[in-house]
């Protein structure tokens, strides 16, 4: 004890709250006085604004009905959408076939090697042969057939065997001096036809044409929706093939003996769908406002949380704000003022990071809440504000803040250990983290991405999503089975690290713990490096 009654044996780690307050406050004020801080934070805000614009634009689009099965299109340009053609059994690839079009019915044919090669009658013919005609329908223009013989332009036949000794085009005829013809193509006539060997002729008739009113294309959009409202799995009824395109062919892909139905397989508790087996063409075109709107909304939140918050802000903010937390003070020499106070160097690192985290954490939290508020206003759903979105957004915020802590501690330590080249290390690390983040999303179960910080943050978001919106699992299955392409599959999968409990809460705790452990480890490494550092 000295004369002032102060004990030197007292640890310097005393009055931590006041010292912590002073250092964190100083750090925040310092960061606020740097242009780079504002640039980075503004870029972050700008990206979010752009994403919001995208979102607003997209949500409007998505609410417009989408033809999931493509049957509103008219591929053969005959004026009838595919759905209507399918009902009438006509092809959407052949412009001559359409609902109400007459179609050809063959009666007989002379093949290239048949013995009997002469046939007489009043028919519609198709092929090649000598025609001794009683009557020819010279005006016959066919039923959108091609290769109709043009009787107004018939030349004299040359000597020799037609098609053997000389060539004539499909859809033409020539005349001999005895007023008989050689015909190559389609035509309507009464008479006898002699088919040379190696040639072919078919005869029959066309059914009568009738006019069928073409359906508007919109009739074939959202014509076969999911009959369940997506909320309570206990209310799943029997799915019906609303547009009849499955019933027409009596499809039974799921082999339960009932054509055109959907089997929903629930888990043991009966409150979660774990598999969907649908017959082909059942529920293939659900209404967007019911499922795809909700799914796109969730995909947007998850995608924004993962790509923009964790992978972009999470990696870039620390690069600009944390790398120099101690390094810059050392380089400027201002560290001397701080270290001449009774404060342990390890303590100093801790408070510096705390200050950085308070600033960036507040920023992230504000940004997340703004995003949550705006999207919940625009989002689909009956309520004005979707309260169930907020936990997810807060989860995104938590994941980002933990990432900022982990990277902040890591980058600060790198800045301490390698003041000169630290920034390059950090950039390489950032790229590694980004790649591992992408792998985490595409191959969630692979083990290599576990060596990254981003993996655990993305898993954390996956877990929070499943806690806040348990039915996301159903949405993912529905989008898969009924062909609704929302991107949910890319951005979200159930969390991996549940320690075999399948519980998203466990996954959340595991991810948080890992991220905190990484942070503490990095702080400890930084502290031990800084403690033994001589400061010039």
């Amino acid at each position: 004890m000295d004369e002032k009654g102060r004990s030197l044996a007292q640890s310097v780690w005393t009055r931590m709250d006041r010292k912590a307050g002073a250092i964190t406050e100083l750090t925040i004020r310092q960061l606020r006085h740097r242009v780079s801080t504002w640039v980075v934070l503004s870029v972050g805000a700008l990206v979010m604004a752009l994403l919001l614009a995208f979102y607003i634009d997209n949500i409007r689009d998505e609410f417009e009905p989408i033809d999931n099965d493509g049957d509103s299109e008219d591929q053969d340009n005959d004026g009838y959408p595919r759905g209507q053609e399918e009902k009438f059994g006509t092809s959407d690839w052949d412009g001559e076939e359409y609902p109400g079009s007459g179609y050809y019915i063959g009666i007989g044919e002379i093949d290239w090697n048949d013995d009997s090669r002469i046939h007489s009658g009043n028919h519609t013919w198709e092929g090649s042969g000598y025609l001794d005609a009683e009557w020819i329908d010279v005006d016959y223009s066919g039923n959108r057939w091609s290769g109709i013989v043009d009787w107004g332009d018939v030349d004299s036949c040359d000597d020799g065997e037609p098609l053997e000794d000389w060539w004539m085009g499909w859809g033409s005829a020539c005349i001999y001096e005895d007023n008989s013809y050689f015909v190559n193509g389609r035509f309507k006539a009464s008479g006898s036809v002699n088919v040379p060997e190696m040639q072919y002729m078919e005869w029959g008739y066309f059914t009568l044409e009738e006019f069928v009113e073409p359906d508007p294309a919109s009739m074939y959009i959202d014509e076969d929706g999911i009959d369940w409202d997506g909320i309570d799995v206990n209310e799943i009824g029997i799915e019906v093939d609303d547009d009849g395109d499955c019933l027409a062919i009596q499809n039974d892909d799921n082999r339960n003996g009932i054509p055109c139905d959907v089997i929903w397989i629930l888990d043991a508790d009966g409150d979660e769908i774990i598999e969907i087996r649908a017959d082909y063409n059942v529920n293939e075109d659900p209404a967007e406002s019911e499922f795809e709107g909700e799914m796109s909304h969730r995909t947007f939140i998850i995608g924004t949380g993962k790509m923009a918050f964790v992978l972009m802000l999470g990696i870039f903010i620390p690069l600009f704000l944390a790398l120099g937390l101690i390094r810059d003070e050392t380089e400027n020499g201002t560290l001397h003022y701080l270290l001449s106070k009774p404060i342990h160097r390890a303590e100093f690192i801790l408070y510096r990071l705390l200050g950085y985290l308070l600033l960036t954490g507040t920023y992230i939290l504000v940004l997340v809440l703004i995003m949550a508020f705006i999207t919940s206003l625009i989002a689909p759903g009956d309520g004005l504000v979707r309260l169930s979105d907020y936990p997810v957004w807060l989860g995104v915020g938590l994941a980002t803040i933990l990432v900022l802590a982990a990277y902040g501690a890591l980058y600060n330590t790198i800045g301490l250990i390698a003041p000169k080249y630290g920034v390059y290390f950090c950039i390489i690390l950032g790229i590694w983290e980004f790649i591992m983040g992408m792998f985490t999303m595409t191959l969630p179960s692979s083990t290599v991405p576990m060596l990254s910080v981003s993996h655990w943050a993305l898993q954390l978001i996956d877990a929070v999503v499943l806690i806040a919106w348990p039915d996301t699992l159903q949405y993912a299955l529905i989008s898969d089975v009924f062909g609704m392409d929302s991107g949910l599959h890319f951005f979200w999968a159930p969390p991996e690290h549940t320690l075999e409990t399948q519980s998203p809460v466990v996954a959340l705790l595991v991810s948080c713990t890992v991220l905190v452990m990484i942070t503490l480890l990095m702080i400890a490494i930084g502290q031990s490096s800084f403690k033994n550092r001589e400061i010039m």
Partner: protein
Amino acid sequence: MSQKTPAVVVDQVSKWYDQVIGLNDVSLAIDGGVTGVLGPNGAGKSTLFKLLMGRLKPSQGSVKLFGEDPWVNPSPYRRIGYVCETERMYDWMTALDFVSTLARLHGMTREEATARAEHVLDFVGLSDVQNKEIGKYSKGMRQRVKIAHALVHDPDLIILDEPLHGCDPIARTSIMSVIRELGTQGKTVLVSSHILEEIERITEQIVILNEGRLLALGNLHAIRGLLDKHPHRILLTCEDPRKLARRFIVENPVYGVRFPNEGQLEIQTNDLSAAHSILPRVITDSGVLVESIDNPDDNLEALLGYLIGGSS
């Protein structure tokens, strides 16, 4: 209380940076009063201070502040104020902000810190500009802010690394009086400089460092007394050097005169204090107007030259 440990104990300390020796086997014990640490640039003054402040680890020997090793334990800093050499400060802060923020690192509350900061800023004479940004301060004002931050917790030991460096004469005078005042308050003050005259105006107790070695330790007058017995020059700038020369040449301590420039007289002596004691009388008797009196040999280089020459 019972056992009084000296504020500063440096025991056979050496510090080298790779091949370069910063400090070579220096031993010191300092307690109470103002001590000037004198030495040319690169003598090891900053190295010594950085060892004291736990920035550097001694390559050999031990450093103790109030009995604690500052490299291991920063707790002595609650009783120490340090004015570092660094000129960079947080320019965007006001002086009051700067000092009170650093005061809070002593565990003071915000209110305590602000009150103490106002007090010390007043002590160094900056109370009227304490709410201005440091970036707008002159060199001398910045130096005084640095001193204020070192005094904010009422330390027992104050270490000032070149506090007068780069200051204008007015700032210099006010900083010197602040340091002297601290000495009279019973604090232990260590102040470094490479200018003898500055130290002389502050204190008599000095430590002389050169090329990492401790050359001398003790009272400046005693050291200087040794120096006085050596050939010394006094340079007078006056109206009629020749008339004055005639008066001086007959005096006992003076053994020679020279006229280096027009209007200048150089007196050569073996006893500087004796020469100075006759100086006023001779000048008054001669009636010659003297503009200035300079001691060209009375500087650190001369002192070092003597000390090195004497020791070898």
